[in-house]
């Protein structure tokens, strides 16, 4: 019933956590979006994050990916302090993300969206592009091939040359995930990947998330779809009003009374 101490659990694996958040706080104007949030994510796990709207889940993602700095607190990736690094350096280190409201590049086709995702893993610069040396051509061909392979993995290879905006919504979600994977991340932050998907698509998304984890990629998942979160997550953190309300295995969370009151529905209060 009580929160198990996460720290102890992770130490049992004998591995340092890949991501560690220590006392992160963030306020917007007078609104405290996050207050003294601390937790760890160990290598290879799927960590679900749930909480009502405005609980600070997306804010937390933005702090981790570096879209804005925390007011206080520290963030460690692989034991390196990253909270002051610009976003692009964090991607290079291995933190990739998707967005709640899809952020595909609509001025590019499906293939180019995944190719641009490999930005931090390719090297061709301004002069290289102009000179178009054999090395640059080889890199470009390799980039195109691995983009197609990623598209193939999510089943979009035959859509490669379509404008990304022409894809059905569910496919756009898959495309955004393959774009994030193209940066060969070690941690993937998925912000509500199932929103707007039907039941069938959500089921396939669950399989995809597990397949990505099986490649050794650690996943943080913010998701409102409870059955998806509960079924794929190894651990779950519950955020409420910017604070960590509870954390534990899916089973522990489902039986946690404070969580039931705060999040799973008012009807629980009657019990």
């Amino acid at each position, binding site marked *: 019933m009580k929160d198990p101490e996460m720290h102890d659990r992770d130490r049992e694996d004998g591995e340092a956590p890949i991501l560690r958040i220590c006392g992160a706080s963030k306020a917007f104007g007078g609104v405290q979006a996050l207050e003294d949030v601390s937790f760890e994510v160990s290598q290879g796990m799927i960590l679900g994050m749930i909480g009502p709207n405005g609980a600070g889940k997306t804010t937390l993602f933005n702090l981790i990916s570096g879209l804005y700095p925390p007011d206080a607190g520290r963030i460690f990736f692989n034991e390196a302090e990253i909270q002051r690094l*610009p976003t692009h350096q964090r991607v290079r280190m291995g933190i990739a993300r998707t967005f709640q409201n899809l952020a595909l590049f609509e001025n590019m086709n499906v293939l180019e969206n995944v190719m641009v995702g490999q930005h931090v893993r390719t090297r061709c610069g301004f002069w290289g592009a102009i000179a178009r040396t054999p090395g640059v051509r080889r890199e470009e061909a390799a980039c195109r*091939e691995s983009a197609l392979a990623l598209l193939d993995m999510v089943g979009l290879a035959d859509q490669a040359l379509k404008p990304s905006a022409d894809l059905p919504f569910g496919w756009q979600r898959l495309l955004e995930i393959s774009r994030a994977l193209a940066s060969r991340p070690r941690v993937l932050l998925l912000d509500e990947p199932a929103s707007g998907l039907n039941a069938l698509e959500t089921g396939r998304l669950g399989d995809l998330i597990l397949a990505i984890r099986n490649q050794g990629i650690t996943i943080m998942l913010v998701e409102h779809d409870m059955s998806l979160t509960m079924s794929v997550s190894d651990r779950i953190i519950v955020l409420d009003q910017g604070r960590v309300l509870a954390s534990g295995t899916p089973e522990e969370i489902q039986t946690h009374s404070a969580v039931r009151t705060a999040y799973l529905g008012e009807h629980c209060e009657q019990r």
Partner: protein
Amino acid sequence: MKAFTRNCSEKIMTQSSLHETLRIGLLAGAVAAAGILFDNAYHIQVLVFIGINTILTLGLNLLMGYTGQISLGHAAFYGIGAYTSAILTVHFQFSPWLALVPSLGLAVLVALIVGIPTLKLSGYYLAMGTLGFGMIVFIVFRELDFWTGGSSGLAGIPSLKIGPVDLTSGRNFYYLVWGAVLGTLVVSRRLIESRVGRALRSIHGSEHAAMAIGVNTQAYKLQVFVFSAFLAALAGFLYAHCIGFISPGSFDFMASVRMVTMVVIGGMASIWGALLGASLLTLLPEWLHAFAEYEMIVYGLILMLVMIFLPQGLLRGLLDIYERSRNA
């Protein structure tokens, strides 16, 4: 599966690069043919101006059309290219080719200095920042009269020579300018179809998303700003040595607006659109001499109509209409 993706990949690659090589080859052929066919000095002169404006438009299109950063002060770089070379050749007896290096270099330097703070701005703020910069440079051209000749302009700019070949003659200059246009086209094309080009376009798509996939947006914005300033200065250099006389009026706010109009009319993010936009807006004033007084109004009207009815630009718009009529 590996074989499948490689196959696909090769097909995609050969298709797109073949088309482009073909198009650029066709354009080179057309340029050569026009050089032989056109006899009239005035026609050649107009073609030279189209070429200079195409270089300008290609540069601004990389910044505006592909990267989505609006500059309303690009005539300043055009002017820096023209005035630096003009001053060095007229007052300091530099040979024009020697003056090319400092005039491009100064434009690059100024672009770096202006770009570092302004490119932190976005949207309207960037437009306002560059607008202010353009005005300052215009005033410098006008007021620094011991070098620039003030508002009455600077005359006697020498023409270009390559060895014994004098490029004063319209036709030789025409080949020089269009050689530069073809070079710029190829370079722009290569940039856009590369890792760098994709990064630039991602910034246009969404700056946040571009950062989130690891693009150093500040650095890329600065690079493309500097490169487009470089191309504007190159165009300015050609312009100054082509007509031998420059005055601040060619580099004022209206000139910046004209450049933006060329990009928008031809089509944002379209290299061939840049060629079309530059051609149309160079020819239009020639055809509509009667409207000289109302140039600003005509440009404004064209800009409005294109934005409302053909927001993708004239080239894309016309192609769409053609395709629709064929399908119907």
